[in-house]
């Protein structure tokens, strides 16, 4: 087994400034990488290659984004400004965003060429950026740019994107909304309660893409076991029917119970479980071809452990994942709401998927 980790020192320049939740230090991979390098269990299991990416070209960016939107971003890149109030753009930031897209493309190439078995990009995931909009800390959609690239270069017909960040990846969804060639399964906190306010289960795709967007929206206080239930009840049957040729995971440890920015109550082990679930799925469906994008953290303490959980999960290898704090014991039980939400998604998607 060989894995690749794609990373560039310049990722740290993706910094929204003091007072903003996303700072450059959260793109510092040093501790995470040494934790993984020095883990004896992982060392026995896999070799690790570290790869430095180069930025995606204008042409690659324009395969997804409109020239008008890119023109706007380039002006921000020169002069600074903002896309939305939550996404101020400093001079040079678009160049860093292109580096993320280049990193994703590099990761995909390594996996498709079988240079490595699994590949991780330790960087941003611009899942809130659509063809001509940005926001939610995202300038361009590096995931979509990469998918378009692998489809073109390797002739892939079916790519599965599973987005487990706590906010719906409405940018990625909108880009592939009418395209059955990309199945977007997105698990997130109920958009009635959190940004971006879209990603409801009745939003299933449009035209030829109907059924190829699966929005699994779960209530605040969702736990690890609730997410696992959704994976088994919804994702497994749909993925088995779809038979993807490549699995792309997009997520980070943002749903960890210690983070204040949302109301999911996941643990590091829960993060491990998600990744190991998809690792198995990739082995049985697409020759193990899997890329993981994201993996940074909005908390310095969680960052290295979160990445360890991600990597060891994808390798389906149990390692020690000590929680930095104890889980609070007085969390409301939302089990029955979760079951209702899952049943609702199944009911909606039975129209499109036979195994549900």
């Amino acid at each position, binding site marked *: 087994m060989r894995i690749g980790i794609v990373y560039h020192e310049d990722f740290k320049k993706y910094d929204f400034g003091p007072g903003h939740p996303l700072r450059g230090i959260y793109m510092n991979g040093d501790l995470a990488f040494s934790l993984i390098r020095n883990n004896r269990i992982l060392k026995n299991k896999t070799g690790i290659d570290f790869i430095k990416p180069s930025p995606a070209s204008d042409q690659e960016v324009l395969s997804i984004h409109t020239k*008008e939107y890119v023109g706007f971003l380039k002006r921000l890149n020169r002069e600074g400004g903002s896309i*939305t109030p939550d996404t101020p753009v400093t001079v040079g930031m678009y160049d860093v965003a292109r580096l993320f897209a280049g990193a994703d493309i590099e990761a995909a190439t390594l996996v498709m060429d079988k240079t490595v078995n699994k590949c991780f990009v330790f960087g941003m995931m611009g899942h809130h950026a659509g063809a001509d*909009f940005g926001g939610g800390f995202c300038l361009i959609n590096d995931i979509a740019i990469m998918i378009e690239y692998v489809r073109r270069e390797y002739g892939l017909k079916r790519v599965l994107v599973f987005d487990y960040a706590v906010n719906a990846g409405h940018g990625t969804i909108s880009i592939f909304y009418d395209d059955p060639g990309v199945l977007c399964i997105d698990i997130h906190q109920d958009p009635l309660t959190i940004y971006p306010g879209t990603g409801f289960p*009745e939003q299933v795709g*449009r035209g030829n893409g*109907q059924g190829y967007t699966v929005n699994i929206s779960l209530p605040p206080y969702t736990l690890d076991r609730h997410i696992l239930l959704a994976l088994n009840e919804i994702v497994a049957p749909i993925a088995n029917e779809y038979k993807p040729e490549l699995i792309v995971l997009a997520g980070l440890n943002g749903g960890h119970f210690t983070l204040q920015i949302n109301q999911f109550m996941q643990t590091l082990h829960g993060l491990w479980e998600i990744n190991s679930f998809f690792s198995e799925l990739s082995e049985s469906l697409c020759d193990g071809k899997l890329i993981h994008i994201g993996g940074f953290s909005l908390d310095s303490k969680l960052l290295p452990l979160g990445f360890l959980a991600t990597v060891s999960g994808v390798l389906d290898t149990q390692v020690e994942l000590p929680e930095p704090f104890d889980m609070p014991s007085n969390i409301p039980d939302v089990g029955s709401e979760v079951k209702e939400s899952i049943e609702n998604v199944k009911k909606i998607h039975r129209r499109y998927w036979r195994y549900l």
Partner: protein
Amino acid sequence: MKTAIIYDENFRKYDFGPNHPFRGDRYKHVTQVFSYEPIAEKSSDIFFVKPKPAADEQIRAVHGADYIDFIESLNENGGALTLDTPIKPGLYPVVKLFAGANILAGRLIAEDICKRVVVLGLGGHHAGYDFGGGFCMVNDIAIMIEYLMHNYDIKRIMVIDYDAHCGEGTQDIFYRSADVLCLDFHQDPKTLFPGKGFTYQIGLGNGKGYTVNMAFPPGSSDKDYLLAFDEICLPIATKFQPEVIICNGGLDAHFLDPLSHLNLTLNGYFKLMSAISSLSRKLCDGKLILINGGGYNPKVVPLGWIAMISGMLEIEDIDIQEPTEPPEYSEVISKEVREMIQELKMIHKPYWEGL
């Protein structure tokens, strides 16, 4: 030229409850509007028509099946589309009536019964293919447009949306279409709901250039709107050659509106609507539909309806007192507006010759 007014008492049931900006009693002003003297003088040219609710398949022509299932379940059990759009049981039939009213407006024109229609209805421009919100469940305008294109030999429809909020639902539905041109005046989405409708958002695929987002900074005035109309709308509309013009009105750009921060006056609404009216004569034989959109100052709503309808009826001048003195014109803001217009021209030049 005859003008039809479409109205139904049941519109008043579109009410989101106390403390919500959208109340059903906004429709109580109908009598006041039509007893305004210059309008009353034209009463022989005006006739009132009552709508029927839109049929399910007319709504299905625009919205996703799973979204319709969802709103049907909300209509039964109550709930919410978004936090700003709570749905109580029984609201959906009222929405269908709004959609039916618009369809009727379109039919009156397509069948040459009259050339001008005012719908004292809703304008659900925040509802997209499979989403709602912003007080909208379904997009009654898009439903009318689909109906017209499907049932009549109409190929090019132009929507002028001057509600203060961007009509992102209408845009979403026709974003890839070159048959529907959406010209949208609104407050800069960086500063207002729905956070969409930036100048660089121009449509996708075949629809590139057919969405024109005029994003005005807070404080923009009549003069700024009329300048954008002359500089942007006139050349693009002339090139597009619409067969009918649909106005999604909205009084929330008025300086006294509590939800937005634009500085239009009643006279500005009158002038804008007069300009649109004369444009419709030039381009499409006067075929023009006005659908009343938002507007959340109860004092302004009836006066604004008078101003818009007077403009549409080509009344020469109006004399309506503003409830309070309008704010002063700002040269600083106007400069920003001129920059926005220049930027928009640069963006749309490749799609519209002569801009």
